[in-house]
């Protein structure tokens, strides 16, 4: 194994960018697979090229990984108090490096602030549940975060629904928290969702109405998707939206519990099929009669 690593190191050295992090990446860009770490199994490979191309490419590894030195044998720097405090709280997420997971707060204090008060953040930070999403659960690995406008970004307009759906389509979580686990399908059958599926770039996705970092329960008093909040939310795209307009369900379930659209759809399907059968039969009979007449005329002409 060691020999293998050393061999790869030589190769890796040729393309690893010369930066403060190059020493870490010397090994970590060459290492493959998972290893037993201090807190469980961790992915040891870091794609140096993607790190440099990411929005965090200018950072050094130890700017977030405070508990590590810049080499296997050098001592670690002190962990900032704020980060250390948060690291204790996020340890519940079971991550291998809670300090690094908490490091985001240094540069993104406003987002952290919003997340703390959100239904997501509260679940982790206050209720000590591993389920609630923190930064990386939505934004992906911090090593490879690209701008939101990049199609690769997990929070890109085209990927938000999938990102939210990772938890909101999960049966275990739906049961545990009383969520509707079919909300993604409901969205995708809504008018907004259908356009989204066709690649519409301006149609609202989850976060456009529900918010992101500061997201609340849908029925919270300051919710963006009920009451006055919803009118304002709709008004972001639908200029002049009124309470009456905002009363429209954005992604309602169409089933027997919503009988009028449900049975209307059934009736319309019957009407479509009925009309279709009628006209199909009409056309077929017309063709049949046409052919029959031609044949009999030919017969008459022949004799």
């Amino acid at each position: 194994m060691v020999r293998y690593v050393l061999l790869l190191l030589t190769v890796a050295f040729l393309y690893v960018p010369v930066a403060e992090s190059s020493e870490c990446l010397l090994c970590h860009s060459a290492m493959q697979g998972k290893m037993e770490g201090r807190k469980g199994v961790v992915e040891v490979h870091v794609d140096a090229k993607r790190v440099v191309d990411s929005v965090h490419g200018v950072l050094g590894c130890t700017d977030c990984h405070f508990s590590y030195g810049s080499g296997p044998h050098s001592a670690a720097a002190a962990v900032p108090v704020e980060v250390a405090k948060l690291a204790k709280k996020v340890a519940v997420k079971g991550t291998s490096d809670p300090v690094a997971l908490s490091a985001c707060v240094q540069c993104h204090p406003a987002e952290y602030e919003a997340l703390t008060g959100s239904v997501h953040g509260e679940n982790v930070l206050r209720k000590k549940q591993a389920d609630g999403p923190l930064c990386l659960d939505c934004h992906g690995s911090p090593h490879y975060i690209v701008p939101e406008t990049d199609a690769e970004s997990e929070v890109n307009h085209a990927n938000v629904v999938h990102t939210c759906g990772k938890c909101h389509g999960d049966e275990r979580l739906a049961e545990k928290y009383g969520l509707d686990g079919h909300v993604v399908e409901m969205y995708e059958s809504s008018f907004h969702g259908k356009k989204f599926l066709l690649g519409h770039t301006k149609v609202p996705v989850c976060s456009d109405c529900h918010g992101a970092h500061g997201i609340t329960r849908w029925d919270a008093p300051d919710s963006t998707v009920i009451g006055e909040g919803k009118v304002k939310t709709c008004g972001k795209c639908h200029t002049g939206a009124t309470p009456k307009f905002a009363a429209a369900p954005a992604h309602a379930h169409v089933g027997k519990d919503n009988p009028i659209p449900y049975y209307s759809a059934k009736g319309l399907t019957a009407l479509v099929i009925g009309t279709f059968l009628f006209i199909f039969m009409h056309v077929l009979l017309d063709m049949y009669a046409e052919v029959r007449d031609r044949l009999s005329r030919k017969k008459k002409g022949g004799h």
Partner: protein
Amino acid sequence: MKKEIPQEIERFSTIFRIQHVILFTTFLLLAFSGWALKYPALEHSRFWVKIWGGAEMAGLIHRVAGVTMLLDFIWHVLYMFYLAAAGRMTFHPVTTVIPMPHDLTDFIKNFMYYMGLAKSPPPFRRFSYLQKFDYWAVFWGMAIIGSSGFILAFPVFSSGIFPNFTLGWIWQLLRVLHSDEALLAVVFILFIHFYSEHLKPGKFPMSWVWLSGKISIEEMKHHHTIEYDYTFGETEDDE
């Protein structure tokens, strides 16, 4: 009284022909630009949308074509009223497009012919029962698809007209109405109209009446026998 029988006769005036051209152009645009939205999860839907330059452009084309079609329809209806008011169009059972009791008997007689129980189809008037059906189907389509489409295209403006108790389901209902009836319209046009006016033996590649507005006297005598008799009296063999 003996009448001069021409080689061909005008069936649709220029204004009707223009209305029809606008109708089928917008119909095709609407069908093609809206189709993908019915089954957006299917792979071919993305292809249909790409043809129009993406979902936004398809939506814009759909709205412009929809409003144009509605205006065309309104123009047609107003023009019909105008013709009636000006005395340029008078009601007669032989020439009217309004469904009459004889349409039901024609329908039955035609089916007897199809089944081989009658030697020939019944003699038709200016509009056969199927042509009347074809014509009024547009009115049905406008009432259902046109109105729901207009409401869906201008939702903020339209939301004011709905009473409060409908707000929980009216939008879904409108969407279902719009898309299901559009499917019905497409299937209907594809089978009845394309078959009758394009594919039917003797018509292929198409009946040219949409362009010239005229049909030959032979065709009139054959397919609109009663109208022919009504127009030219019983003197069909004099020329």
